[in-house]
Each structure stands twice: as C-alpha cells, then as structure tokens.
C-alpha cells in the first residue's frame, strides 16, 4: 500500500528502474558534506560567539552546549552596533549607505544594458552576451587591481582630469574616499546584476509587446505597463544576489583605500577581529558580528531562495 502510493507520487518509471533508495544514496555524499561543512560551521559560529576563554591558551573556544553560552560577546556587539557612539555603529551605517548607493548605481547602469541585450537577436546578441559574461570570469581582485593602477596619483584617471583642466592637482582617490569605494562596489558587482535581469527580460514574450503595440499603446507606455512589471522579479533577484556578497565585502574597501579605517565596512571589522590573537574575546566578538551579519542578510536570502525555487518549479513544469 505504502509502496504503491510512493510509486504513484513519483510519477515516472525511473523509480522502478533503479533499486529502491538508489537516488537517495546518490545524494548522500553531497548532503552529508553540506551538513558537515555548511550547517555545522553555522552552529560553530554561534557557539564561538557564546564561547569562553580557554584557561591554557587564553584564547576563546567554542561552547557547544547552549546552556553554557556566555552572552557577553553578543551583548557587546549589539551595544556597539546600536549605541550612536558604538564602535560598529558607524561602520554599520556606512556599510548600509555604501551598499544602497552601489545597488542603485548597479540598477541604473545595468538595466538599460540588460534590456538592450534582451532585445537583440542572432549574432549581435551572442557577441554582447559573451562580453557581458566576460567580467564574471575575471578574478574580482584582478578587476580591483586594475582600478588601483588607474586611480593612482599618476594614474590615467588623474592625468585625464588634470589634462582636461577639470582638476588642478591629482585627486587622492585611493586615500579613503567613499566615492571610490562605492564606484568600486558598483563596478565589481554590476555583471552579477545584469545576468539574472537579462534572463528575466528575455522571458518577456514579444507577443505581449505586439499586443500592446496593436492596441495603440505608445512605446513608453508599453515599457512601463508590460516590460517593467514583468522584469520586476528579475530586478529584485539581481538586487538580492549582489547585496548578499556586498554586505560581507571587505576586499573592495581595503584595496581601493589602502586599508584605511575611514571607509571600513562590516566585513573589514569581522576580518580584523578574526585575525586578532592578543585579545582573548576578539574571535568571539568576530563570531557575534558575523552572526549579526548573517541575521541581517537572512531576509534577502529567504527572499531569493523562495523566488528561485518558484522559478525552478515553473521552469520544470513547462
């Protein structure tokens, strides 16, 4: 009885071709790996944040039993995030600001590009697509390194601006300037925004546009009433997919401002806490800060997972 129901629910003959449990066992190595090295590490972060100093080494160790968690590190991090003069308060607000500006830039720069690519056909489209995917596969650090060379005092950007008479003296772009870091973030992540948006725009059926056209809608109206609403999911997915890594980014700010504190983001704070070995609770505080970061982005994560799962279901149905 139970067996028959199972077979019917699986709905295809593959279940009967292979021995029972065959596919479950095929999944097992991957699932076990992800539990051991993804789920467990999440718990270890929290355990570390609630950990106490080892009497021998003087360094913090994780406390695996929640009953014995020391809440001091959590409390410290929350206080410092919340209080207006807290150490992490400024850094946190700066991170929010940088991410917000960079995301807006990505949308402004990326939407027209994705829209244009989705309207092309044939050979031109293939060429544009390859070029759009290209930055994706160039190491992020290499792309930042390229800008370090361009933004130096004697770099191309400064020489161009002084040559044109816009600047009198070279501008110190790399000395802890917010504008540099924001543009760096936008530059780094915009390819990751364009591709999912392109995929969404490409799914907009030409027949819808034709219908709007035939019914007498102006081209602007067609765009606002048809294309824009249909690409909303793509924009949101793209925004989510770039915001997630941006919140944890520390290398963009570091490379584009010579590691100066004026432009440090949350990721830089985490990074320096984890490397600290002289102060016993540094790693615990780092862990608490990472936990706070993970909670912050979990909203985005959930949104993205749910919408992706929905898209996958629709794709497999058709």
């Amino acid at each position, binding site marked *: 009885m139970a067996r028959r129901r199972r077979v019917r629910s699986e709905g*295809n003959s593959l279940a009967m071709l292979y021995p029972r449990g065959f596919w479950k066992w*095929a999944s097992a190595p991957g699932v076990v790996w992800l539990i051991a*090295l993804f789920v467990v590490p999440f718990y270890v972060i929290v355990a570390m944040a609630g950990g106490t100093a080892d009497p021998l080494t003087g360094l913090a160790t*994780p406390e695996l039993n929640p009953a014995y968690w020391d809440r001091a590190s959590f409390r410290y991090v929350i206080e410092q995030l919340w209080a207006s003069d807290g150490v992490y308060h400024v850094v946190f607000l700066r991170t929010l600001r940088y991410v917000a500006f960079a995301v807006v830039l990505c949308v402004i720069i990326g939407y027209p590009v994705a829209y244009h690519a989705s*309207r092309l056909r044939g050979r031109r489209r293939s060429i544009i697509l390859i070029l759009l995917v290209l930055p994706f596969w160039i190491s992020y650090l290499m792309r930042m390194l390229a800008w370090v060379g361009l933004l130096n005092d004697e770099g191309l950007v400064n020489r161009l601006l002084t040559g044109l008479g816009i600047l009198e003296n070279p501008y110190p772009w790399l000395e802890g300037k917010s504008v540099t870091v924001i543009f760096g973030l936008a530059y780094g992540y915009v390819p990751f925004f364009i591709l999912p948006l392109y995929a969404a725009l490409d799914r907009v059926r030409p027949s819808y546009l034709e219908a709007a056209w035939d019914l007498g809608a102006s081209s602007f109206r067609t765009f606002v009433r048809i294309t824009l609403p249909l690409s909303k999911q793509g924009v949101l997915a793209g925004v989510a997919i770039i915001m997630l890594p941006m919140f944890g980014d520390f290398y963009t700010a570091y*490379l584009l401002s010579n590691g100066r504190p004026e432009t440090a983001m949350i990721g830089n704070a985490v990074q320096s806490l984890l490397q600290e070995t002289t102060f016993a609770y540094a790693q615990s505080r780092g862990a608490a800060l990472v936990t706070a970061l993970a909670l912050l982005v979990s909203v985005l994560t959930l949104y993205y997972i749910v919408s992706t799962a929905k898209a996958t279901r629709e794709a497999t149905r058709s």
Partner: protein
Amino acid sequence: MNVQELIANPWRKHRFLSLWTWVYLAWAIVPVVIAIGFSFNAGRSRSVWQGASLQWWIHDPDLSLLHNPVLGSAIRQSLVLGVATMAIATPIGVALALGLARWHGRGSGASNYLMLLPLVTPEIVLATGIFFTLTHLTKPFLEPGTIGQIVGHVTWSIPYVVVVLRGRIFGVGPELEEAAMDLGAPPLQALRRALLPILSPAIFAAFMIVFALSIDDFVTSQFLSTGSYTQTVPMLIYSSGRTAPNPALNATATVMLVISLGAIGLAGLGMKIVSRRRGMESETADVARFQL
C-alpha cells in the same frame, strides 16, 4: 528626439541603448586590458607607460614572474586548489544533482533548500564558519592550510555543479535508461553507458566552471590560509597594498586570467555541443544557469 521613444520601442534601432551598452562594456573590460598592458611596462610603474619590455615576465633576475619564487608559488597554490576542488566537488555534485532530481522521498525537499543555501550566503560567513570549525573542532584531523582551503572551496562549489547539471537532467527522459535495461543492462551499467554520456558535456562544463571559480576565489582561501605557502594569486593581489607592487604582479594576474577564461571557454564549448546535439535550448538558458 523623444526620450520615451528611446526607451521603449522594441522594434526600432536603439542608438541610445546601444551606445549605453558599449560604453558599459568598455568601462567593464578596458581597465583590465590596461592592467594586462602594464605587465609589459619597461618601468616599475603600474600607472605610467615607460615603453614595452618583457622585463617583468622573464628578464628581471629577481622580480620577474619567471624568477620570483613568491609569484610562482602563488600560481602553483591557486592551480593546486583549482584542480583538487574540481576533482572532488564535481563527482559529489553530479551525484547530488542526479539524486535531487530523482529522489522524491522524505528529506529531498529539505536537501534541495540546503543545496541552494551556500549560493546565497555571503562568503565571509561561510569562510568564518569553516575557519572556526577547522581550528577548534577538527583540529589535528583537519585544519586550515592547503587541505582546509580545498575543503572550503569544495563546500561552496558543490551547489554550482548541481545548478549547472540540473537543467540538463530534467531534459533527459527515462527512455534511454529503459532501453538499456530492456537490453539487459543492470542499473549501474545503464547509468554509466546511457545517462552519463548524455550528460558528459554538462559534466565537463561543471569541471571547468568549478576550476575557474576556485582559482578566482579570495575569501575562503584567505581565511583558511596558514602562511606564505598557502598564498594564492588573489591573496597576493589583496596584500599588494603593503608590498610595493611592480608590474610582475600584473603579469601574474594575467596568467591566471588566461587560465580561467580558457577553462570557461572550454566549458562554453561543451555546453554548445550538447545544445546543438539536442537542437533546442537557447544560449539564454545557459547564461542564466551560469549565474545561478
């Protein structure tokens, strides 16, 4: 000219959009080309052109890519991580992709979500977690260092393999395997001789993609590094602010760029072969799938 017209009409030539796109592409790609160019600079600067030379590639006896052991070691470490990661993550990921597509029992739904999660977790969180686990929990048995870096890379690579393969697997019906079994093949042989050959271009693409992602990775490598021996090329670039870099760094980055784009080119070729063979499937789907 009407701005609204420029935005919308899907049939007319979009001069504005076309220009915008090409300016974007130039902005995205030209800086990297310039950085590659400076690896051939005759002077020490990475910003001012002083003539062409191969000094930073082969001629300088101490600082060139060919002679500076630090640069060579970073390239070697990046390649070691890339090869080991693709060798471990791809088989696990292929099995997981097949399993998740065809296993519908209890736990399969949760496993599907579990598989997606690493893709949407900021890498700093994942790397911190693995760093703590390896330093405090599994220490003598498994610890940071080359092995730790490989373990970290494999963890976030598995989902990419699944995503690359999933679409292909859904497209394959049971017919071929049924035929194989009707002809007397036991299940494992049907899998090996009927299913895997159809998937082989996608599997090959997954190998290449994981390799390219791994050699470009920075955060995981950095968090699980234990010193100069475990320094990769992206880590070298990161620390360049402190080490008065010269164009040999650009040369090193260029080598990695060529290797990584080469791997992706091969992956694209593999995907193209499979889509041509099946005569459907636009490149759109591939691009979208590469993304997630």
